[in-house]
């Protein structure tokens, strides 16, 4: 009898301690962009070492889905490559903050037998190729930009694009719309557009395998994807007139160049930013956070955001993401400080809010 009582007692104590342990763990749910997912995953797993009581659950379902889930209140934070539109922001009762997390870029890659080095391209020619106006690689306009390269004769250009709706397409088409009035008139910009010509592949891997298989093809992928697979890429002529290759550095430069014109809510496009050594097809990716949160979970989220602006940024370049410029980090930190935690120890504050 005594033995079984002890076992029973032990089990009860065990359950209670388990219960209290479980209560301490805070589960933070998020959903959204796929592009920054490798970085976020690294952040979330590393952050476990900083604060053991926080557990992140991030579903990389895409920016559009992320925004919808966040607005529906299913998740604690959202993530999107493109900033939310005004009418989307208006749907929320609580103000929403855009926290720039990192920077990415779109690289234009190609497959030309015999051409291994990078090629030069101006935005106008790029737009004409993707509209199907320039049909062959030995076109005058391409030859003029690359006088030293021997182009294959009579080789047709096969345009490859993302068939799935994606932030990458949104950034790429927004850039082309900015640099080509013809593009703006005929195609426009968005996560999925009506392509006049070519082949569609699903995801970065779909596009890149199409490019790999078809000699004479051209396609656009996320910069880190092009690096990891060692694809040849184009140097694109920027607003200043330099031909710049995509790189972690040239993308951070794009953010630096546009700091002065950065609006208060950080919702901005930094394609075709004016400055030297700037890669012109760059973009921010954002975490979406409510400005007013319940204090227990909210505090954990705020702590994490602050960490991501410090230690988090140093992890970016190792994964081929561009870290935010220092000046911007300061502005983001002061923005994070505007987050209000409801039901906090300061009871007067809490009363005011209610």
């Amino acid at each position, binding site marked *: 009898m005594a033995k079984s009582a002890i076992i029973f007692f032990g089990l009860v104590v065990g359950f209670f301690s388990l219960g209290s342990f479980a209560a301490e763990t805070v589960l933070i749910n998020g959903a959204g962009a796929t592009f920054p997912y490798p970085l976020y995953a690294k952040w979330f797993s590393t952050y476990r070492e900083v604060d053991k009581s926080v557990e992140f659950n991030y579903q990389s*379902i*895409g*920016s*559009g*889905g992320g925004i919808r889930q966040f607005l529906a209140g299913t998740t604690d934070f959202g993530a999107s490559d493109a900033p939310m539109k005004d009418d989307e922001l208006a749907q929320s009762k609580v103000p929403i903050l855009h926290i720039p997390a990192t920077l990415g870029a779109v690289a234009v890659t190609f497959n030309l037998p015999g051409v291994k080095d990078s090629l030069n391209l101006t935005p106008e020619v790029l737009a004409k190729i993707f509209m199907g106006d320039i049909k062959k690689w030995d076109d005058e306009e391409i030859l003029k930009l690359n006088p030293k390269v021997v182009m294959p004769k009579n080789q*047709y250009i*096969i345009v490859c694009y993302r*068939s*799935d*709706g*994606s*932030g990458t397409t949104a950034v790429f088409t927004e850039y082309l719309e900015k640099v080509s009035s013809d593009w703006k008139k005929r*195609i*426009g*910009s*968005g*996560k*999925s*557009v*009506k*392509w006049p010509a*070519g*082949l*569609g*592949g*699903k995801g970065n891997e*779909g596009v890149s*395998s*199409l490019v790999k*298989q*078809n000699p004479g093809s051209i396609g656009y992928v996320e910069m880190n994807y092009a690096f990891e697979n060692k694809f040849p890429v184009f140097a694109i002529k920027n607003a200043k007139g330099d031909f710049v290759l995509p790189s972690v550095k040239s993308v951070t430069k794009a953010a630096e160049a546009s700091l002065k014109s950065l609006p208060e809510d950080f919702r901005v496009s930094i394609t075709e930013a004016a400055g030297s050594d700037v890669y012109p097809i760059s973009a921010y990716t954002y975490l979406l956070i409510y400005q007013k949160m319940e204090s227990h979970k909210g505090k954990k989220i705020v702590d994490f955001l602050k960490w991501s602006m410090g230690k988090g940024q140093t992890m970016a370049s190792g994964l081929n993401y561009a870290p935010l410029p220092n000046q911007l980090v300061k502005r983001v930190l002061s923005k994070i400080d505007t987050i209000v935690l409801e039901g906090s120890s300061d009871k007067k504050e809490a009363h005011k809010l209610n």
Partner: protein
Amino acid sequence: MEVESKWIPFVLERIIPGISSARRIRRRDVNWGDRVFYYGLKLSAWALGALLLYMILLIWKMSEPAFQMYGWRFFVTNDWNSVTGEFGALALIYGTVVSSLAAIGLAVPVSVAVALFLNELAPEWLSRPLGFLVEMLAAIPSIVYGLWGLFVLAPFLRNYIQPPLADYLGFTPLFSGPPMGVGMMAAVVILAIMVMPTITAICREVFRAIPRSNREAALGLGATRWEMLKIAVLRSSHAGILGATILGLGRALGETMAVTMVIGNNPLISASLFSSAQTMSSILANQYAEADSLLQLSALSAVAFTLFLVSLLINGFARLIVWRVNSQYKSG
């Protein structure tokens, strides 16, 4: 009028066999266990039906804004542009129907031949492992087919199959344009491979059901082996082969991932097998997660609804054929 009143119970009986005799059976059973069992089964069956109806209703509700906006034009226009907000599903319907029918056309003769060989001609030591391997094909997830299609099949078609077709038959619209590997042809081939195990397995069952004496009788009358297969096996299993075809067609119509990977994802209506195309299920897989506007979401739901209608129409049509074939054999 009289003709109609005759028809209605006939059709009802076709949809729900035994509907007219169901009551009699129920009155007879008095055992409580039987009764609970009976209602349990009945509930499961009805729940499944209700779930289907609920899903149709839900998809219809979601697609209503798009149908209100475009009306019947949704089915006959060909523009799919989320920037301008113009949505028409004709090219998608074309892509789905053509790729599925062509795949079935390719798969059925091969499947029937495989089933005949395994059941009637191959020795036991060969037919067992071979049959097992064919059935294993059905267990491969479709994304694996898709990746295989993208990395192996499409380059193979591009390098070895399409260039000679373009050289010798390039004057026909079927094989015009530059060979690019991915496109309608790759989709048809991958779908054919995917539906083949299903059709083969059912055909084998159908052939197995034919009494041995039929074959012996045919041989006894002096038929050659081929004539025996034709008279005793194939001729009496038309309905079964058709049924297998319908099931295969069902799989082909709804197949999403494998097709999305290899079809080129450009909503074009082109006679050329080299051209890219887009199917209804592939545009759903491509655009649903990142749809920008509510109208686009609604248009995508409308595509889902259309896919449902098309599958229903084709399956209904196929079922009609089976009835006709069945009744022919019963009367003849």
